[in-house]
């Protein structure tokens, strides 16, 4: 039986550019089932990343205009600390530009998420278990030999695989990937999608993934494709192969 884990309901989001209000999302709705891999397609500037930020609690919809529900709970009703905890525990972000911290090694970048989530005492208590998990994730990403390297010493693909490992360190319920292959060539991008797929199947249950992309061939790797058009989500006609 399917279970909705994350849902956007009639979400509106407007940005203000100077004196001009620019509506990006105009009543976008999306339901994501547990274990589902959903690809959100759309042209540049269509609001894909905005939707992902809203789903991840990094941003909020316009006041009173739509809601984001995680496991049935409206993110708008969460306070600052709860929202921080939501980002730390329930979602993991992967960005197009990797967003690794250049001063940290590959291993430290991955452990950073765990440090934020568990705090000083909690991290110290779980240090060896967390380190083992980080090394396992990096092994799975093919980076077992790069633990002490800095991001600047890695290729684009390796950086993105590091970012994926970081996103997964806290075993999030939902992985939110924003154009994860956008900066990579086709072959490397394919490898990244393979890595995501491998991760998806590595856990006990299937990992829920929401991935935004402008590339149809990337979106085909997902279970389901939706498209953002004029600020609304519409189902794609062509279903993806499972």
């Amino acid at each position: 039986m399917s279970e909705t884990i994350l849902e956007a309901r009639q979400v509106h989001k407007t940005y203000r550019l100077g004196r001009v209000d620019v509506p990006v999302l105009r009543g976008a709705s999306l339901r994501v089932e547990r274990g589902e891999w959903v690809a959100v397609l759309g042209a540049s500037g269509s609001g894909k990343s905005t939707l992902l930020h809203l789903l991840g609690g990094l941003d909020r919809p316009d006041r009173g205009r739509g809601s984001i529900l995680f496991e049935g709970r409206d993110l708008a009703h969460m306070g600052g600390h709860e929202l921080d905890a939501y980002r730390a525990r329930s979602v993991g972000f992967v960005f197009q530009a990797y967003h690794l911290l250049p001063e940290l090694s590959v291993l430290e970048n991955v452990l950073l998420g765990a440090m934020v989530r568990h705090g000083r005492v909690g991290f110290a208590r779980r240090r060896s278990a967390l380190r083992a998990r980080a090394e396992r994730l990096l092994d799975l990403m093919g980076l077992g030999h790069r633990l002490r390297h800095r991001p600047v010493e890695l290729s684009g693909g390796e950086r993105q695989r590091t970012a994926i490992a970081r996103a997964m360190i806290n075993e999030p319920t939902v992985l939110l990937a924003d154009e994860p292959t956008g900066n990579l060539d086709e072959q490397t991008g394919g490898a990244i999608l393979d890595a995501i797929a491998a991760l998806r199947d590595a856990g006990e249950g299937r990992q829920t993934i929401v991935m935004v992309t402008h590339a149809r061939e990337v979106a085909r790797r997902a279970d389901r494709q939706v498209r953002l058009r004029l600020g609304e989500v519409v189902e794609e006609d062509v279903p993806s192969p499972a």
Partner: protein
Amino acid sequence: MYQSLLTRRYLTHRIMPLLAALAVALSTAMVATTWSVMGGFLQILLDSGRTFVGDVRIFRPSRGFAHYDELIARLEADPMVDRACAIIETFGVVSLVGDETRAVRVIGVEPTSYDAVTGYFDTLYWHPIDLPNRADRLGEDPRLRPLVPDNPDLARRLELTWEQIEQNGREVMRMDRKILRRVPAIVPGIEVHGHVNRRQPGGWYLPYAHVPNPQRVDDWFLVPVHGEVTLRVLPLDEDGRALEMASRILPVANEFRTGNYEFDSNMVIVRRDMLQEMLHMDEAERIVEGSSSGIVVDPDTGEERFVEPETVVDPARANAVLVSGAAGVEVNALRARVEEIYEAFSREFGQPAARVQTWEQINAGFIGAVRKEIALVLVLFSFISLTAVFLVLAIFWSMVNEKTKDIGILRSLGASRAGIAWLWVRYGLSIGLVGSLLGGLLSVLIVRNINPIHEWLGRALGITVWDPKVYYFSEIPSRIDPSATAIVLIGGVLAAGVGALIPALRAAHLDPVRALRHE
């Protein structure tokens, strides 16, 4: 946890935080060095101010009080008191070598007891020395060489050795070479004859040379060898009216140097018994009935007859008793105890009330002025050091700008606003800690070596910042004040934290989405 990791990494991977730490280091070093040097300067002044006062002084100006030996015995019997001595303080006029006349404070002392209370012997300037002071690189200080190098026997006979001159100062006596007898002498402060004793940049004195070859020691005009001073003082009667001025020509036995210009330029020391005599404060028989000749005229008959005059003996008087406290006795507690002892003494012996003051109260004017001056300098330097706070603020503002994306990343990972703020404040405190420790180390190095540094500046660049002719100390104080340094270091850490606070709050309130998109 992530804060400590990032603080370490940011500190070691960026040049800007090191610049901020350097700014903090320089500021803390500047303030700590100033505080230590000025504190040392104050301490020297305090020590010098205490030199001729002891811890507590009982003082009754002009006519003074009698039976001071009894008072001293009572004081010295008290466990809170170490030693006490009676002196006379008055004003006089001296005609100096070179026909210069000036008003001075005249102190009449019994040298040994005066030394026991004040350390007077240690202030005698003319004494033999083995090594030149640090600034006398060529060894020009005359005390390094014998006075009469060619004929030691003659030198001894004529008491022309540094050892003998030192002894003369200890006794306040000198050989009168005309009558070949030791006579009461005078010990002026070294700057009283400032026109003869020429203070050198190194802080030592070169006597005036009255012949063309100043390199020959015996060609110098040395005040304790050749000098004579005419001292005039004004005795007062019991009602405080001036009597006839007393005058004496006194050979100079030695000169003292306390390091306090007020003392060294305006004070002379003579023997108490001699001064008592000059001021009519010595023990004396006084006729209370009859006349000095014993002949009395009968008012009725006009007949003269002899009547034995009735006399009393007025004991000798002093107008101040100086007291030094036993080890560990607090000076205000000592003052209170001395006051009690004096009150009991004055009741019993019918002596007038006297002022009992601590050395700090006596010197309150000049101590207060120096303390205020130091506080002012520190406030000014602290204001200058505020630039470090603004420098840290500017650097952190720029770093927050540079690290905006990192802040977005951390927020996406679930870091709270408070966590982000703490990251930057902690980072600022770390920079403050590193900077302050460096500054403290720098300050210790500077203060410990301030005199060699000063000498090097003088040699290399011709700069004499601390001119002993002006500041009256031969060496710059080089004592490190641990508590002052600790306060400055803590201040440095806190200042850097304050400097980081505004950028930290700005970082905490950054919109995470905008931060992630920041280029």
